[in-house]
């Protein structure tokens, strides 16, 4: 186990964490502003990936694919909000869970119907493929490094949007007191649609970016969605900062656990048992982390309310 491998794995963990952050930020924003739990967020991630793969496949341009992912997911998000989601704000969580679960069924089967069950592939563009040499002589895939940079840039943009712009003020006001900002003459229905579309666009963007490393297929969104839930539970619902820190914690724990737990187990067991015990434990690591946070801080690390 060398230092280079360790640094590589830390970077992998960061990259995974940053992508989780894009998902979790949208979820937590939607919950914070509208009080809605959206299980269909994973479907928007999938829609983004499919839009990117389809457009990039047609035009041959990865950049156009990314734009299509952003636009497609935002459009799908706005449409879903207008038709279904806005009827759910006043309903209880059970109704929200069921209605958004129903949306998952519709989106997943609809995508299967359109594109078939075989995975699509989205190629990394030439200018981002291949390894790059980092200081210290570490070879690391350029695309993954680009994901970290892009993700951080989006995070910064989101921070600026929420803390510096007029829309951001309205979003923060909406989190605190929605009757009051409606009384101040702000079109709350429009604000909700915008926030939902924004969250959807973030999810779709993440889906497209990750789609180039993994295959693009139906059902790709749900495992990520559940991980994003773990992130939010750890970070605290409604907190973007919590989402960032939670996402990095989860990304690093999952990646490093998968590599190092089997190694640690080799100290106690014979190699084949160690690999199987280690990988079983690694698959549970982030949930153990979540349980630990729950015991210590039930409202999450940065949760304003339980």
């Amino acid at each position: 186990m060398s230092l280079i491998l360790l640094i590589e794995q830390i970077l992998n963990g960061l990259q995974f964490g940053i992508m989780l952050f894009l998902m979790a930020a949208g979820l937590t924003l939607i919950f914070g502003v509208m009080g809605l739990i959206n299980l269909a967020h994973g479907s928007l991630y999938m829609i983004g990936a499919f839009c990117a793969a389809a457009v990039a496949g047609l035009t041959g341009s990865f950049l156009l694919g990314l734009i299509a992912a952003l636009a497609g997911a935002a459009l799908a998000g706005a449409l879903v909000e207008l038709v279904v989601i806005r009827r759910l704000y006043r309903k209880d969580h059970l109704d929200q869970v069921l209605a958004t679960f129903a949306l998952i069924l519709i989106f997943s089967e609809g995508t299967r119907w359109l594109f078939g069950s075989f995975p699509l592939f989205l190629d990394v563009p030439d200018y981002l493929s291949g390894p790059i040499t980092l200081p210290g002589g570490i070879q690391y895939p350029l695309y993954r490094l680009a994901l970290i940079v892009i993700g951080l840039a989006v995070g910064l943009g989101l921070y600026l949007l929420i803390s510096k712009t007029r829309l951001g003020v309205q979003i923060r006001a909406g989190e605190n007191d929605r009757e009051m900002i409606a009384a101040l003459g702000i079109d709350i229905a429009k604000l909700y649609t915008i926030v939902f579309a924004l969250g959807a666009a973030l999810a779709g963007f993440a889906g497209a970016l990750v789609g180039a490393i993994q295959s693009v297929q139906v059902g790709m969104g749900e495992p990520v969605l559940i991980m994003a839930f773990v992130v939010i539970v750890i970070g605290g619902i409604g907190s973007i900062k919590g989402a960032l820190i939670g996402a990095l914690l989860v990304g690093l724990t999952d990646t490093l656990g998968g590599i190092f737990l089997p190694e640690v187990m080799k100290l106690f067991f014979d190699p084949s048992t160690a690999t199987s015990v280690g990988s079983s434990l690694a698959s549970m690591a982030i949930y153990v982390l979540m349980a630990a946070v729950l015991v210590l801080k039930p409202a999450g690390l940065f949760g304003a309310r339980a």
Partner: protein
Amino acid sequence: MTRETYVNAFTLALFVAIPLWAVVADEPFTITLMTRAAIFAIAAVGLNIALGLGGLVSLGHAVFFGLGGYSMGILAYHAQTYMSLAEWPLLIEGTKSMPVIWLTAIVVSSLAALVIGILSLRTAGVYFIMITLAFGQMFFFFAISWSEYGGEDGLSIYVRNGFPGLNTLDPIQFYGLCLGLLCLVLAFAWRLANSPFGLALNAARQAPLRVETVGLDPARLRLVAFVLSGAIAGLAGALFADLNRFVSPVMFSWQTSGEIMIFVILGGVGRLFGPVVGALVFVALEHWLGGLSEFWHIYLGLLLLLIVLFARGGLIGLVAGREAVHD
């Protein structure tokens, strides 16, 4: 008698009449479908205790369903390979006896429900939903990576387990067992809802503060409800594994949790027979729509959406009106 009572009686009559017809008409597949419906109904009656009575929106009941399934799978696997399950501190052999398997499933899933309940009931609302979902995923990934019992491929059991005095290989006899258990579970749920505990739990859902002021602990009531609910789902899991003679990590998946919740909602939350009607309708839809189109989940999704948006009382609510719900 209210209209809901008629609906309940009619549902029960269907559960008796359809399989009897299937025996006469020699349609064993229909019996298998009805067995599936009865087993799903047991799981959903279990969830309804937490969901309908306790107001706990658990998206993780696949954990208990799966643990029940794996209890059966592991015990029967050791029995069919003649390897003992443990030799120390005491010798544990596998078994092919249903009562022992059921008991194991119930004990294992209640213990899991106790631990998960203690952790996740520290929170409420959306947190609770997300956490139960996450715990479900934890078991799912654990089952996938646990290669000793099949990992991703699951475990096949060659011969259905036995019940003293019955030939469980005969579809109608196995169905009879499942229906009997469904009736027992329904009777239990009915007694529970009308017991002091059930009334307190119901009150804790509607006004936790008032329950606390009269000296009851809402958290404890919820935990007990969660454990009972998990135990029943575990029993259903063991039966489901026996029906298919197969267990796989899919039993732990979040889709399974979602489906168990769909059974409850389709029929009507908090109603005694809601889960039973829901399970029956689900199996019928799965069979008919699944035969019509490969993409039947779209129609299921649309139906679910319509019910959530426009028919809060579920199908029983549509037929019998809202009078049974007192909140």
